[in-house]
């Protein structure tokens, strides 16, 4: 039963530096990296050591808690470095890529004839399970628990995010294979959202329920879709997966080849020629951003969009789940009387001598300045304007801060992920780190309740 979802609460942050719809093949970088911080809560057991040869799609480590869950290399080459942190925790695994890529030859499968158990073991063994995340807790899905439904957002509403309609074009066969396979893993439906006016390759898929969404960001967040279609109750699990990862799963199912290729948007006000690049998971971002040209030196490079991405150094790597690289100016400078001057060049939801409301179509060049210092919660009612979920945002944040597990559970903690609080964090007058607070709250629940 599909339904149209129209979001009223939210905020479109309009920024300079949107990508033009033009894709070039990126120069392959010498080194690719898998960063363990992308797999929240996974403790790796290494299968390869430094100096070992790997093929693309060959397992490099498995999940200590579930040995069948493999994580594979995006490229073929040699494991060149394993960077460890405190208590020898593995942070990053670097692979020097071969000039010609070798792929592990998995069996290609006829998706229609597989049963759930076969799909599951196939995905676990080939490394594709890592693309499936679950709520509650926003972590890689637990294969033991069947989800009540699977949610896929095919509409990227975040600022400057890669346009799914564009990057998925021509991938219908792969998407269909992946969706059909996933639909066998749940009793419920596979729910897919597409933009209302969009011409999405996802909208013609079978074995799925298509929802048309419209409205400001976060209308394209998968959390918004879940909340509107079938919210997570206590004891229930839903899975989420991004469309660009469906393509990788689909290609694997059809051809047996783990092809980590992905079309990545390089965007932001400091990028001279924002456009799309065809590259691979774990690529060195420098190869992309310097190919596009950067306007200046004092920049922040973000793997992901400006609201939910990770800060990376220019010699850092594209995150496992990301398909956008954003480059914006750092804001590490003082601004004379900045707290009281009228403001025309920054985004605000208030009208307190902030004039962005006068220019609804203006594109802004925002920097990373917090525009104020961290304070206790004072202002009320501003989060609700940009938060479309049927949850009290400030109350749940406070419950997380005081580690009140009962209140967190009652207020809907099973339904949320940090990214759902990106906009409340953006508008927060007290500059509280909402996403961090929610992440820590989820980790606490995972530890205490499981």
């Amino acid at each position, binding site marked *: 039963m599909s339904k149209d979802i129209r979001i009223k609460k939210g905020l479109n942050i309009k920024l300079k530096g949107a990508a033009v719809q033009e894709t070039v093949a990126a120069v392959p970088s010498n080194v690719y990296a898998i960063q363990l911080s992308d797999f929240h809560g996974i403790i790796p057991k290494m299968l390869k050591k430094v100096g070992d040869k790997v093929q693309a799609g060959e397992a490099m480590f498995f999940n200590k808690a579930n040995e069948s869950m493999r994580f594979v290399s995006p490229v073929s080459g040699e494991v060149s470095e394993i960077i460890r942190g405190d208590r020898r925790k593995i942070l990053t695994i670097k692979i020097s890529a071969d000039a010609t890529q070798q792929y592990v030859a998995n069996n290609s499968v006829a998706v229609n004839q597989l049963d759930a158990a076969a799909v599951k073991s196939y995905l676990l063994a080939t490394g594709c399970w890592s693309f499936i995340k679950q709520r509650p807790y926003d972590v890689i899905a637990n294969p033991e628990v069947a989800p009540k439904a699977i949610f896929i957002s095919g509409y990227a509403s975040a600022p400057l995010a890669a346009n799914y309609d564009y990057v998925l074009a021509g991938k219908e066969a792969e998407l269909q294979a992946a969706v059909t396979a996933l639909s066998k893993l749940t009793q419920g439906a596979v729910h897919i959202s597409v933009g209302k006016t969009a011409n999405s390759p996802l909208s013609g898929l079978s074995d799925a329920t298509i929802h048309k969404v419209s409205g400001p960001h976060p209308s394209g967040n998968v959390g918004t879709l879940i909340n509107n279609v079938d919210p997570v109750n*206590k004891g229930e699990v839903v899975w989420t997966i991004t469309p660009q990862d469906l393509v990788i799963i689909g290609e694997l199912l059809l051809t047996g080849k783990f092809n980590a290729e992905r079309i990545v948007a390089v965007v932001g006000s400091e990028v001279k020629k924002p456009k799309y690049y065809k590259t691979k998971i774990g690529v060195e971002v420098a190869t992309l951003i310097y190919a596009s040209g950067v306007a200046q030196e004092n920049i*922040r490079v973000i793997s992901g969009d400006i609201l939910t991405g990770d800060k990376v150094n220019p010699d850092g790597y594209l995150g496992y789940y990301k398909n956008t690289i954003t480059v914006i100016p750092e804001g590490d400078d003082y601004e004379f009387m900045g707290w009281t001057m009228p403001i025309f060049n920054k985004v605000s939801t208030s009208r307190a001598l902030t004039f962005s409301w006068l220019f609804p179509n203006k594109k802004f060049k925002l920097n990373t300045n917090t525009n104020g210092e961290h304070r206790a919660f004072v202002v009320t009612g501003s989060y609700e304007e940009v938060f479309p979920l049927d949850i009290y945002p400030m109350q749940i944040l406070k419950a997380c801060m005081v580690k009140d597990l009962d209140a967190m559970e009652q207020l809907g903690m099973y339904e949320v992920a940090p990214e759902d609080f*990106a906009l409340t964090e953006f508008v927060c007058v007290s500059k509280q780190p909402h996403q961090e607070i929610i992440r820590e709250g989820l980790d606490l629940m995972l530890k205490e309740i499981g």
Partner: protein
Amino acid sequence: MSLKSNLHNLKEKYKGTKMAPAFNALHTFLYLPNETTHSGGHVRAADDLKRTMNTVIMALIPCLIFGMFNAGYQHYVATGEIQAVTNGFFSTEFWSMDNLLLGAMKILPLVLVSYIVGLGVEFIFAIIKGHEVEEGYLVSGMLIPLIVPVDIPLWMLGVAVVFGVVIGKEVFGGTGMNILNPALTVRAFLFFAYPTWMTGDKVWVEDAKERADQIADGVKGIDAISGETLLGSLAQGKEITYSVMDQFLGFIPGSVGETSTLLILLAGLFLIFTKIGSWRIMLSAVLGSLAMGYIFNMLAPSMAGTKFFALMDMEFWQHLLVGGLAFGIVFMATDPVSAAQTNKGKIIYGFLIGFMSVMIRVFNPAFPEGVMLAILLMNVFAPTIDHYVVQGNIKKRLKRLKVKTA
């Protein structure tokens, strides 16, 4: 070396020391800090707490200036030196330099004492507890001089401010943690600690108290000044000489900033437009007071002859024009920390404030200023209101689960 880099170097030098919060408080007034995002989203909206507070202060400034003119005006009218206004809001009798000078001499010291004492306490607490100086007092410090009688002794104000900031706010953990509105805590302290000052009929016009004392001491040749608030007169059923228009424009005696309903109305609209003040609270509080006033109007005929009759029989909308009700609704009830925090809760909270204000006002003619007590009372109940609103959301979630499992 520019001022900017000098200050930056000083900031680095003081980092981690006891004095850092004090230095940073001053530094961040001059310059928006160079802090960048380090977790979660990489950009933030333009507003910070200083800007929010500053917007409220901007809304208060017209009330303060009007209050200065009014203090002088009330004095000179009472002494008979000038005539009462005749030409509406822009009457020259009111907007004269003499009025302003007298008023400024009286009121600027109140503002200074309020800020120096209050911010002093804030700085001390920030240094002791090692957190940044939070901006909450910027607004409280401006509100306090506007809700006290013009003739209040400065020492009394100073004591009250210390009480209000320490007991009203800091003991709970500072800005954002308080249960009661600090400015109203100050006024409540004055009200109960020095009742003769706050409720008598001598304090509301500059010089009235001194004249009365002089007359009592036997000084000849001067006239007594009546220094009663309008509400006091109304409560006692006296004939009043002020027209409704005077009450609306604010040419009446009363606390410094509360008299001009016109300016308060404009300030309220400004706060709603800037999205700093909650329209839900303001609107529902106005409706609440009108509702209670209307109920009393209906009941008044059966209460004829009782001491409540005078205020009960007053036109229901007139409650908004006299006393501190309008000021309280726009500036006090909307304090986001002590008000209800959920949108539904705000409507209930505001309505009850309006309702209770008029009720207390009518039923307690000895202390006719009900709005302060009503807001403080509702401050205490705001978390309870929120609790039930949030419970609604929680119940809905539980019900959803039950439907599933059934």
